[in-house]
């Protein structure tokens, strides 16, 4: 900042602007904090991170982790402590905010505007509010693939279309930074894919993208950088490669009538096998082709063989009831070299409602493969 100030005193406004852009990131959150109500713990505690030009930054966290609060604080829509700077300026100080920052907030299942309006009329109206021509609105309808439905009323729009219209709205001023709050939540896989492609292309064009997400798998697909939030605290801020290495693992899901036999063979071959219930197993440590070959060699019939990416901490879901205490020691031993401090803090997940409570979260991660090794 001090550097930018000295530059300002010496040079003209255009050069100054250029210098400021070079010094500051498109988005910089500094100590965003929101106190909890009535003595509850803070909704968001001292969150600092930045989003860089040409990158997709994902703010990742489960529901209630404070991602949306962070965005709303950054935009000045909520009161709190800390600040967020867009190219070195708070949002309310931007002279033409729509030219610098495009924002997609709100839910996908609500229309982007008055439900009785037609999409083209609505977007043209917003174009006037943003001070751009109606042609730009039509162009964006094409770009978001809404042109065929441009004359339909907003109440007939699906969640995916709502989201794309909201995106078109945010893009009207041709901003260099995009802020999106769960843009892909509740959307069909095809729409999710389209959104990912669009945001990646936007970043590739030199823009900065900040997206909040809940799903680590989506984050791994979309992000260049992943900022993980948990209960309002910053847990990790890592490049996506590191994120993938520490938070996710590849598994192969195998289904068939004789998987129990296959599980023994796989375990003998050194893979970690986990029963998913019924006749499905998850295998870690062997590639899909190798499993297929092994099954073929032993004449085992398979119905399904598919790659999957799962979190290190399996989501609390249906688990076989196990006496958890027995395998604690083994579980700790089995923590591989890949387990770093970062992953350890990232892991906590709320215990499954109704399910039995495991003694510690850390063990749940590796409990099952080991147990099933013994079982089969």
């Amino acid at each position, binding site marked *: 900042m001090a550097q930018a100030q000295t530059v300002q005193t010496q040079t003209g406004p255009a050069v100054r602007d250029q210098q400021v852009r070079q010094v500051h990131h498109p988005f910089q959150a500094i100590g965003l904090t929101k106190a909890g109500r009535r003595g509850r713990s803070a909704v968001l505690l001292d969150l600092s991170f930045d989003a860089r030009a040409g990158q997709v930054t994902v703010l990742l966290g489960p529901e209630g982790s404070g991602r949306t609060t962070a965005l709303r604080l950054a935009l000045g829509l909520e009161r709190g402590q800390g600040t967020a700077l867009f190219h070195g300026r708070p949002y309310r100080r931007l002279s033409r905010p729509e030219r610098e920052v495009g924002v997609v*907030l709100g839910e996908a299942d609500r229309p982007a505007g008055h439900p009785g309006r037609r999409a083209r009329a609505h977007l*043209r109206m917003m174009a006037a509010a943003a001070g751009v021509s109606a042609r730009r609105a039509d162009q964006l309808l094409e770009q978001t693939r809404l042109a065929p439905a441009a004359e339909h009323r907003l109440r007939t729009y699906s969640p995916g279309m709502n989201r794309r219209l909201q995106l078109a709205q945010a893009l009207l001023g041709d901003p260099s930074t995009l802020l999106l709050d769960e843009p892909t939540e509740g959307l069909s896989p095809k729409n999710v894919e389209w959104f990912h492609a669009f945001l990646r292309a936007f970043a590739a064009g030199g823009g900065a993208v900040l997206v909040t997400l809940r799903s680590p798998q989506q984050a791994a697909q979309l992000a260049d950088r992943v900022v993980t939030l948990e209960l309002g605290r910053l847990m990790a801020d890592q490049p996506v490669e590191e994120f993938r290495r520490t938070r996710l693992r590849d598994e192969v899901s195998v289904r068939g009538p004789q998987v129990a036999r296959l599980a023994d063979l796989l375990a003998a071959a050194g893979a970690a096998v986990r029963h998913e219930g019924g006749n499905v197993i998850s295998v870690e440590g062997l590639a899909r082709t190798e499993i297929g070959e092994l099954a073929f060699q032993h004449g085992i019939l398979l119905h399904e063989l598919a790659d999957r990416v799962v979190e290190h901490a399996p989501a609390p879901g249906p688990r076989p009831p196990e006496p958890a205490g027995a395998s604690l020691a083994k579980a700790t031993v089995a923590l591989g070299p890949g387990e770093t401090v970062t992953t350890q803090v990232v892991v906590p997940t709320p215990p499954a409602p109704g399910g039995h409570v495991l003694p510690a979260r850390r063990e749940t991660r590796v409990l099952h493969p080991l147990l099933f090794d013994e079982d089969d």
Partner: protein
Amino acid sequence: MHALTYERRRLSGVRSSWLVPVVVLGASAVVAVLTVRQGAAAGSPAADPLRVLTAGLPLLPLPIAALGAGVVGALSAGHEFRHPAPLALLRPLRRRLALLLAKLVTVGVFAGLLGVGTLVLDAVVLHLGHHTAAARLEAAVLHGHVPVALGGYLALVVAGGWIGLLGAVLLRSAAAGMLVLIMVPVLVEPVASALLGSGAARGGGDGVLRWHRFFPVDGTHAWLYGALSGLHSGTTVSDAGLAVAVAAPVLMLLLAYLVLLPRRSAL
């Protein structure tokens, strides 16, 4: 930001801006026809041509067109609260001011057109239904003597639109804006008579009686603004007094809003 373009596109894109004029024109034509017939049935003194033109109803505190303009104005403001524009497009102070001005201009023009539309339609009704009265009025208009009350009527319609708009902006809801519009004539009269100081003398009674006269459910009550619709107002206020009575609520609401504007985050 092109606030006027925005407001024009907003107004033309919602159904209410087409429905309201249709309803208003239809209702005022019906009232005009009924007024003409009532005059004809009574035989004696024909209905005041002015009352036919403005479709004045003794029951309503304001002309139908003013109420319609108020609905459009209130919806115009209510839209920004029910379907807010995506974030800060409209958040900086100067933009909110520009938007308010654009809304005032658009609603004003809309209300003016609505008023002229009702006048024209009712003039046709009058021409068809009551030749002699129409002929006299037409001759006067041809000679350039347009009744002042017609100008007052148009001003009242425009003011109705603005009161609806400003009321809705102040209270952040279209329904509240309509309530303000309906409350204004009720509140203006006691204030006006208190200010003029002559109300008591003319009323000839004490305060309680006067209050009773202002009770809006009373069907025979003569509204202050009625003078602008050819209804016989109980109070004989001068033209200047009427102009003040029309402009004062608008100005007061505008001032109240301008005081609040910098303290608000949305419109």
